[in-house]
C-alpha cells in the first residue's frame, strides 16, 4: 500500500480512497483484533458481555436541510452503527467544535433535534465536550458522537459470516439523504420534496432480528449501497448480485440523480440498512421490516453467489449486467 502524500477530499468520501487512507495510515499505527474487521462498530469483550463501541464525526453543510439537520444525523448515525452489529444502544457522547460567531439559536435547535432523535432511539447523551475555535478555523459546527451498546448473548453479526445463497435485503428507498443535502447546499431548486431519511434504526433492526436467519447488517451511509456491497463481498469472498428493478429509489430522487449525473447506488443515506440473511428467512424479515415506519419500502434486492472471481454485479432492467465498483472519491456532477 502506497504512502499517502497529502490528504485530498476524496479520502473522506467513504469510498476506495477512504479505505486506502485507513489501511495505509491508521491501521499501520492502531491495528488490533477489535479494530481489524473495520465494521460499523467494534466488538469489545468484557467479562460476561460483549459491547459494541463506535464513533463518528459530522461535518455537513448546510447544518439544516429538508428532513433533518447535523444533530439528528449525528445521533442517528452512531445509534445505527451500534444497531447494525446487533447491539442495543446504552449511552452516547457528543462533542462539539464550534466556530466563533455561531448563532446560539441555531445551536439550540440542533441540540433539541439531537434530544428528539435520542429519545426516539431510547438512549441518552451522557457525556460531552465543547471547543470553540476562531472564526475561519472551522465551518460553523462539527459534531462528534460516540456510542456504546450491548450485544445480547448469542447474537453475532459479521460480514464474514455471509454465505452463498443468502439474500440481500434493502430496508427502503436509497439516495434521498445525499440528494436532499446537495439540493440544499447548492440551492439546486430541485422539486419533488426530497427529504433526508435520517432516522434511528435500532427499533427497526430489533424487529428484523426477531426473525432468525440474519448473518450480517450494514448501514448504507457514505459511498452508498455499491460501496457497502463491495466491502461485504471482500469480507466474505462472495459475489453480490443485485437486480436494478428491485433496488428501491423514489421517482423524484431518481430523476434528480439523472439530472446531476449521479448514480443513486453511490449516494449517501442516513436511515437505511442492508441485511444479508438466509434465503428461508427473507419473507419473515421483509414482513418485519415493512411493518415498521422506517422499513415500508423494504425489498429483496439481490443475492450472494459463490464464484471464482467475486464481484459486485447489477442485473439491469433491460436484461443486461454490469459490475459495480466501490466509490472511488467524490462523485462529481457532470457538465451536460
Amino acid at each position, binding site marked *: 500500500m502506497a504512502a499517502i502524500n*497529502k490528504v*485530498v*477530499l*476524496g479520502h473522506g468520501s467513504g469510498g*476506495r*480512497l477512504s479505505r486506502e487512507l485507513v489501511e495505509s495510515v491508521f491501521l499501520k499505527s492502531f491495528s488490533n483484533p477489535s479494530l481489524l474487521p473495520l465494521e460499523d462498530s467494534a466488538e469489545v469483550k468484557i467479562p460476561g458481555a460483549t459491547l459494541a463501541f463506535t464513533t463518528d464525526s459530522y461535518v455537513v453543510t448546510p447544518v439544516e436541510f429538508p428532513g433533518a439537520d447535523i444533530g439528528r444525523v449525528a445521533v442517528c448515525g452512531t445509534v445505527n452503527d451500534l444497531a447494525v452489529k446487533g447491539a442495543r444502544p446504552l449511552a452516547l457522547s457528543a462533542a462539539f467544535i464550534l466556530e466563533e460567531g455561531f448563532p446560539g439559536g441555531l445551536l439550540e435547535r440542533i441540540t433539541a433535534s439531537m434530544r428528539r432523535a435520542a429519545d426516539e432511539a431510547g438512549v441518552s447523551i451522557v457525556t460531552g465536550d465543547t471547543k470553540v475555535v476562531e472564526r475561519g478555523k472551522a465551518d460553523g459546527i462539527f459534531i462528534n458522537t460516540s456510542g456504546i451498546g450491548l450485544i445480547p448473548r448469542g447474537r453475532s453479526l459479521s460480514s464474514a459470516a455471509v454465505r452463498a445463497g443468502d439474500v440481500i435485503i434493502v430496508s427502503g428507498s436509497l439516495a434521498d439523504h445525499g440528494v436532499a443535502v446537495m439540493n440544499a447546499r*447548492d*440551492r*439546486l431548486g430541485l422539486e419533488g420534496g426530497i427529504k433526508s431519511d435520517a432516522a434511528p434504526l435500532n427499533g427497526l433492526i430489533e424487529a428484523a432480528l426477531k426473525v432468525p436467519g440474519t448473518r450480517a447488517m450494514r448501514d448504507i451511509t457514505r459511498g452508498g449501497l455499491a460501496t457497502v456491497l463491495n466491502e461485504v463481498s471482500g469480507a466474505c469472498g462472495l459475489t453480490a448480485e443485485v437486480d*436494478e*428493478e*428491485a*433496488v*428501491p*429509489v423514489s421517482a423524484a430522487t*431518481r430523476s434528480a440523480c439523472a439530472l*446531476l*449525473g449521479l*448514480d443513486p447506488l453511490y449516494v449517501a443515506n442516513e436511515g437505511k440498512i442492508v441485511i444479508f440473511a438466509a434465503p428461508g428467512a427473507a419473507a419473515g424479515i421483509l414482513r418485519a421490516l415493512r411493518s415498521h415506519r422506517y422499513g*415500508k*419500502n423494504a*425489498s*429483496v434486492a439481490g443475492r450472494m453467489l459463490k464464484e471464482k472471481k467475486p464481484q459486485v454485479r*447489477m*442485473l*439491469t*432492467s*433491460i*436484461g*443486461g*449486467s*454490469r*459490475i*459495480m*465498483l466501490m466509490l*472511488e*472519491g467524490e*462523485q*462529481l*456532477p*457532470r*457538465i*451536460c
Partner: protein
Amino acid sequence: MKAAAAGRFSSPLWRDRALAASAFSEMGALASAAAAKKGGRVNFMEVCGTHTMAIAASGMRRLFPRELRMLSGPGCPVCVTSQGDIDRVLALAGIPGVMITTFGDMLKVKGSKGLDLASARERGADVRVVYSPLDAVALAAAEPSREVVFIGVGFETTAPVIGAAVARAKKMGLKNFSSTAFFKLVPPALELLLSDPEHKIHGFLLPGHVSAIIGTGPYRFVAEKYRVPCVVTGFEPLDILAGINMLFKQVISGEPRVEDEYFRAVRAEGNPAAQKLMREVFSVSAATWRAIGPVKNTGLEFSKAYAAFDAVKRFKIKYAEAPEPEGCLCGTILLGKALPPDCPLFGKGCTPSNAVGPCMVSSEGACAAWFKYGG
C-alpha cells in the same frame, strides 16, 4: 406504493424488459443482414458521452449481436479539451485573487505538468464547483472585489447556457466576471472523423441534447456527402436500442439519411432562441481538439460585442502546445479507432482516482464508463 409491493421500482416503459428483449431479437436479425451487406462487422459510433455512459450503465453491450461494434465518439466535453487549454485553465487558477467557477467534471483533468484544479485548490486556489454558470454570475455580483472566472467548455448544449450567463453579466454591468470559451461544435467534429479516408464508421447515434439545440439540418451532409446513416437518439436504454435498429435498417436499405428517434425532445429546426443567443455572444472559430490539434471552424469564441468577457484575453493567458500524456490513447479512442481496453494504461496506470487522460476523468468519458461498469 403499489410498485413497492410488487418489488418493482424502476421499470417504466423505456426500461421495459419485454420491449428490450424484442428490440434485441430484431437487432440480431438486422445485424446479420447489415453485416452481410458490409462484408464484415458493422461499426456504429455513439457521438455523445451521455450515450457512452448510458450504454455502459444499462449493461447492454453484453447483449449486442457479435456483428455490432459500438465506438465512442468525440462528444465528451472534458475529453476533447486539449492539454494546452487545460494548462490555460490552471494558469487562470494560479492568478492571485481569481475565483475559478467550474462544472465538477473539470476538477480532475490534468494539465501537461500532471496538475489539476483539485490539486490547485489543495494548494490554496479558490476553485468552486457550480451547477449552472448563472451561479457564477451571482457569485461575481455578490463579491465585486473578486475576479470570477467561469470555465466554459463543451458543445452546443453548454454554449447557449454559458452565453446566457455572459449576456446576463453584461446586462448587470458586471466588470468582474469572465469565462473561457473553449467550445467545440458537433457537426464539424463529425466531418473531421469522416474526412479521414480510413474511417470505418457505418452509422452515427447522434446526440439528443445537442440536437435539441441545433436541430437535425446541420447533420444532413453526413448522409448526403459521406453516405453515412444518422439517427438522433434519446438516452434511455430503449431509445438507444431503437436508434441502433434504425441505423441497421438504413445500412441494409443503402439509403442513408438523418432520422429522429428522439422526436419527443428534438425538432427539425432545433431551438431558435438558443441558436440566436449563441450567434449573438459567440462566433465560429478554430478550436484545438485533444490529440488532433487546431481545426478551423470547429469551435466558438466570444463575438466582438462580448470580447470583454473573454477570460483568456482579460488575463492575457498564452496558449502553448502541450504533448499528450505518454502512452495515453484518449485521442485515438475519441476518433473511434480504439476501444478503452486497447490502451496499455487502462485500469493499470490509469484509473478514475488516478487518471492519466481525460477519458478516464470525465463521468462521460469512454474509459471511465468501461472501467466503472465493465464495458
